[in-house]
């Protein structure tokens, strides 16, 4: 507990970590306050259509083709992005850690089988596979999350496997076998805590990637039709790109800033969790 608090403190003192944390806090704030600030929801036709930003103080970002408030849509969209991003990342991390740890620890034919499976997933273009999955089983938040997670886990699996391969030869792991510890306990209690640093760093990139994929799916019309996501707004504004470009610009900026903040945090975490750089931050 003190260790993770210490990590957070050092992260906040890291320049890009600080900027990243501030930005992501802003997005989190938007997600939390969306229904307080906009009780009517993002779908309400609140004003005249295609209202340019700044022309009406009630709609600072203007309205879309149906007269829906874009600021409200951006706020509600942050919820979808964060939720899909975080849950898809968690699912793929859980899957990747499981596959990577088992493959690396047991080696032999188990390793071969699991790594060929990983290869199989990596040879298919990720985004196409996500599109195919959503296209087949239908679009809802959970299927989209699943479709993103199922293509992202191989990266984590390879990362964890490499570290487990290195750690399993350490004497302390051998010592655990000699005292009679079970293999599962050795993997999860002794080895995995020692290889979490690269996984944590990758997580932020994974979340960012999941957010992009979700927005891309929604942009292509494969988003959950019942939720307002940034991709949904992009999709709606596509036809109006010449006349009302602000409809696509504002969700695009929101996307860029969110993904940027996650990447900044990833970079900072890389420095903070690197034991050789401890003195510098």
């Amino acid at each position, binding site marked *: 507990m003190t260790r993770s608090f210490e990590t957070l403190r050092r992260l906040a003192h890291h320049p890009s970590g600080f900027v990243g944390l501030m930005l992501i806090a802003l997005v989190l704030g938007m997600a939390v306050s969306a229904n307080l600030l906009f009780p009517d929801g993002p779908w309400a036709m609140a004003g005249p259509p295609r209202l340019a930003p700044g022309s009406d103080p009630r709609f600072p970002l203007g309205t879309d083709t149906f007269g829906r408030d874009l600021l409200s849509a951006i706020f509600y969209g942050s919820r979808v992005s964060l939720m899909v991003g975080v849950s898809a990342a968690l699912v793929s991390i859980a899957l990747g850690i499981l596959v990577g740890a088992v493959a690396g620890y047991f080696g032999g034919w188990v390793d071969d089988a699991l790594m060929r499976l990983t290869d199989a997933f990596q040879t298919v273009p990720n985004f196409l596979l996500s599109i195919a999955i959503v296209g087949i089983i239908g679009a809802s938040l959970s299927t989209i999350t699943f479709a993103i997670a199922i293509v992202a886990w191989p990266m984590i699996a390879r990362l964890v496997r490499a570290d487990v391969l290195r750690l399993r030869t350490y004497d302390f792991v*051998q010592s655990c076998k000699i005292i009679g510890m079970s293999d599962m306990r050795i993997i999860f209690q002794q080895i995995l805590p020692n290889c979490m640093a690269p996984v944590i760093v990758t997580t932020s990139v994974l979340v960012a990637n999941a957010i992009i994929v979700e927005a891309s799916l929604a942009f292509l019309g494969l988003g959950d039709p019942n939720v307002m996501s940034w991709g949904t707004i992009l999709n709606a504004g596509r036809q109006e790109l010449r006349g009302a470009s602000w409809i696509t610009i504002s969700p695009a900026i929101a996307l860029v800033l969110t993904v940027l903040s996650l990447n900044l945090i990833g970079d900072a975490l890389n420095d903070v969790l690197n034991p050789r750089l401890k003195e510098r931050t």
Partner: protein
Amino acid sequence: MNPVLRTDHLKVHHDTARGTLKAVDGIDLSIAEGETLGLVGESGCGKSTLARCIVGISRPTDGSIAIQGVSGGRGRAARLDRAQTVQMIFQDPSGALNPRLRVDRIIREPLDVNNVGDRSERRDKALKIAREVGLSDYHLDRMPHELSGGQRQRVSIARALALNPKLLVCDEAVSALDVSVQAQVLNLLVDLQKDLGLSYLFISHDLAVVRYVSHRIAVMYMGRIVEIGPAEDVWRGRLHPYTRALTASIPDEAARRDTGELLEGDVPSPVSPPSGCAFRTRCRFARQQCAAERPELRRVGTHEVACHFAETISD
């Protein structure tokens, strides 16, 4: 009475791309209760592989290992059974301790895994052992990286002793320590042996250290034992040319008089060992018979030696 450890024709062969690597090639050993058997040999001679087999983290290709008369099985129950009788101390004291766990947890872990007593009993037991190996309460709250090499090795010893094993396998247990700390740890091991009636398999490339702690010494070359016997007899009445070369390599006055015995060349490839006696390629006494016929261990005086000409070459 059953010996604490007995191995019969123990073999460990690895299949490599270039052929079968015979890391351990037919080893018969026994260690009695309260006895220390020193095992010496160059790196790569199979000492560590033998150690890993005895503690159960490598599986022998052939032959058997009996600990207190019981041959271990493969499953989880066998792993737990074995843990109660044989434990190991490693060479590198920093790699042998999980860097993320506190020292008290590291020492208590064997008790937790084997469900010895309840929580508070385990804590008391860990504290008691820590004191026995010369650690204080202060050290128990530390992380491994906050301790010195000698202290870490004491933590390893405490962890190994937690389950009251009969046999401790010490694989180069003091080789990574400073000379002054080496002496402390060696004395600790000797004291613990007296107090607890432990048996040691003490593996090292350092003959002086092995001579100091061992009752008997076995000399290993390319997966086989070439000479074994009471420590001082092997030391002073060395018979095998390889043992003579090893003792001659110690830089001290007495040994320097045995001139011309220093080893030359490298250990031959264990994938394609020489025919007959494996040592003949580096042996200055080698004759025709050495290439034709592999010498088996045979009794000569107080110890056993695997050399056709053990009697004739002694000076």
